[in-house]
């Protein structure tokens, strides 16, 4: 098939061609970036936290009128309140293990600092930034963390301290990511490191495979997998307990926990948000990411629908306009398939031109998003897939009107209007 007559014909309705090409270009630019956003959000939501998330729940509560922690003896009073709660929770029939903990991954309540290989480094500098988790010897078991080197905490390692007091643990467990950052040769186990610019050493006695930071914001991206676990029960006028239940008994335990705790003491605050399954924590943490992905998905669908409909509409118009010419071609010996191919080829030309412009627009839009909104660079693969998709969309949309054109009988040529 010769392209020359086709291009000559397209020149006769420049405006329509330009509008369709422009529409395809804009669609390509937006869809590429929107699909990229969707892909990134899905990747973000699917990254594993390092926990075994089934049958895991968190209780956050506060004691009314509890000591502030500033007077002598306050911390011990708070610790006895904590111990009483722990004993009651551990005695529950469906509970496998309980750990008092300051936070959990995805909870967006963070304690961060820095770790250093040498004593007395600046607090903000250090060799690596890290988030801190505080818990007792039940932490690894309760969260379901996978120990890849060394050992977990024993009861003898665990101490208690005031929430706002400083204190350095003799032993710590770190994530493999943090261990490898500090000791790239992989020999971190048994080494002493210094927390928060302190001067007393903490020995790494264990490494866990993976443990995500509590925060989900972009500020934590640089040290998302750097976690340090300290063997402390933190004492404040509030507490959090992570609870692992027997398989399938999560709902029952969630339901029973408030009464068990009120049974220990009524002077406490337990509200609607106090007892949460980890699934709820995950859902809340990623709500906006899932929402953004859904929104982008809806926009893409509308865009593709509108563009496809636009192509159908405009091509139908052109078919109607060229009714007689098609009849003449058919009368002169063109087969039905030739007419079909003509319109398909024409659409391919227009879509191709649109895709080329769209390629530039997609990259331009991505650069704007990178500059203004901290987006990542759009991989070429997305753009190529986008080009293939809009070309396929164009072919799909043009098929119905093109077939109608190919069914124009040759006899039309002999009729005058």
């Amino acid at each position, binding site marked *: 098939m010769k392209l020359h007559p086709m291009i000559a014909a397209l020149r006769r309705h420049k*405006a*329509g061609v330009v*509008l*369709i090409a*422009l*529409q395809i270009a*804009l669609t390509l*630019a*937006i869809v590429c970036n*929107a699909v990229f956003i969707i892909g990134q959000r899905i990747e973000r939501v699917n990254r594993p936290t390092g926990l075994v998330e089934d049958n895991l729940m968190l209780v956050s509560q*506060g004691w*009314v*009128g509890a000591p*502030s*922690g*500033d007077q002598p003896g306050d911390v011990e009073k708070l610790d006895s309140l904590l111990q009483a709660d722990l004993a009651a929770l551990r005695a529950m029939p469906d509970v496998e293990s309980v750990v008092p903990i300051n936070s959990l991954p995805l909870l967006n309540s963070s304690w961060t600092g820095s770790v250093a290989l040498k004593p007395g480094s*600046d*607090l*903000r*500098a250090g060799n690596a930034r890290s988030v801190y988790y505080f818990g007792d010897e039940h932490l690894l078991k309760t969260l379901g963390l996978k120990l890849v080197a060394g050992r977990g905490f024993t009861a003898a390692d665990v101490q208690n301290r*005031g929430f*706002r*007091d*400083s204190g350095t643990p003799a032993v710590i467990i770190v994530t493999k990511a943090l261990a490898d950052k500090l000791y790239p040769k992989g020999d971190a186990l048994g080494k002493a490191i210094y927390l*928060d*610019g302190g001067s007393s050493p903490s020995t790494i006695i264990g490494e866990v495979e993976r443990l995500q930071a509590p925060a989900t914001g972009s500020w934590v991206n640089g040290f998302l997998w750097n976690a340090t676990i300290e063997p402390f029960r933190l004492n*404040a006028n509030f507490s959090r307990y992570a609870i692992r239940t027997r398989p399938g008994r999560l709902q029952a335990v969630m339901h029973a926990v408030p009464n068990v705790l*009120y049974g220990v003491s009524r*002077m*406490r*605050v*337990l*509200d609607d948000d106090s007892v949460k399954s980890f699934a709820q924590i995950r859902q809340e943490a990623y*709500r*906006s990411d*899932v*929402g*953004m992905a*859904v*929104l982008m998905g*809806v*926009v893409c669908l*509308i*865009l593709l629908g*509108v*563009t496809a*409909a*636009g192509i159908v*509409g*405009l091509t*139908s*118009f*052109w078919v*109607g*306009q060229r009714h007689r010419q098609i009849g003449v071609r058919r009368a002169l010996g063109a087969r039905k398939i030739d007419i079909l191919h003509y319109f398909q080829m024409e659409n391919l030309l227009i879509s191709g031109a649109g895709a080329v412009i769209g390629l530039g627009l997609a990259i331009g*839009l991505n650069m704007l*998003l990178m500059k*203004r*909104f*901290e987006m990542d660079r759009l991989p070429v693969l997305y753009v190529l897939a986008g080009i293939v998709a809009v070309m396929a969309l164009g072919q799909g949309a043009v098929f119905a009107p093109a077939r109608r054109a190919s069914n124009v009988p040759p006899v039309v040529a002999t009729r005058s209007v």
Partner: protein
Amino acid sequence: MFAYYFELALRSLKRSRGLTLLMVLAIGFGVAASMTTYSVFRAVSGDPIPWKSSKLFVPQIDMWGPKARDPNGDPPDAMDYADAMALMRAHRARYQSAMYQISPSVVPADASKHPINVSGHAVFSEFFPMVDVPFKYGAGWTADDDTQRSAVVVISSKLNDKLFGGQNSVGRTLDIEGKDYRVVGVTDHWNPQPRFFDVVNTGGFTDGAEDVLLPFNRAIDVGMPNNGNTNCNEVPKESGFVGLQHSSCVWMAYMVQLDDAAAVQAYREYLDGYARDQQKAGRFGWAPNNRLRDVPAWLDAEHVVPSDTKVSLLVALGLLVVCLVNTAGLLLAKFLRRSSEIGVRRALGAQRSAIYAQFLTEAGIVGLAGGVLGLLLTGVGVASVGWVMPKDIASLARLDVSLLAITLLVAVVATMLAGLYPTFRASRVQPAWQLKSN
């Protein structure tokens, strides 16, 4: 004449129903997507206190020095206790208040009810006139209550409904953390979004309430700890909440009211003078590097509007543009198909302007129909943003009269703009050409 064009347009639109439906759908969806995301954007980027946001300022003092500055060279965005108290004592602004976020428990008088958790702020008396807190009953406390460390409290109307059945509770007592406080005021549905006076601790938008406002000095005295962020440049040397007050950690918000440019200038000079004094005293080892931003500039610097909201709006506007390009293409096809009709009209003496009027009327009708569809879809969209946006933000998006009006206006104006070129082409149709061939 308009009625005639209206009738012509309706006839023409009826003639090709598929094409008309396509245009209406495209405009409806495009407008609805843009308006839904715009309603969210409008909700989060609005000025929370438009009548005086340009008079309210947030001072920042560089108490940590060059190493801790952010990439723009800005000092910490919150205050440490020592500097906040020094600024309060100097009292150089019309109104000022240091404040920190609290989350105490309230014990209901009815012993059968469990204690509840409330959230709020510890503030100074000048906070109330400064941010124009509206009162349902009573008022804020006085400067005397600040100095005497009175056990008084301002509660929200919501908490008042819960604890006192919505009655005037001024003078009644409330048990907060086991201590009695006298209610002096009940705020009137006050829930500013974003929380411009404490962006650092709320992140701007919050689904929490300002249930209790307590005198700052009193809260410090009873050791009511802060419930927000604490950021430290070095580990506090002492322990507990008192240790935090003696440390250089930042955990407080601070706001001042400055009524005119001269006052702003004077306050800037005061801040620089204060930093220089600290430098001379050996506490700061660097030159003054303070900031004093009014509320809009502060919200901008703190990136209060989530970037997701802006990206959504941008993408939805892109969608609207595509829908309009689509409509322009279809209108072009539709109008040019009627070249012979235009030729006849022109040959019979119709002016170009008449052609313009006729076809723009038709575009306007398509836009109006698209706008009505868009209104319905925007309603659906705004109702379902709760499903795709964070709770604290989604609850702010509302469908109101102005949004409805904007939706219709955008639909009609945009469609008529899209119809301009096709109309221009229609008006250029040569009558002789059309008449000859037939």
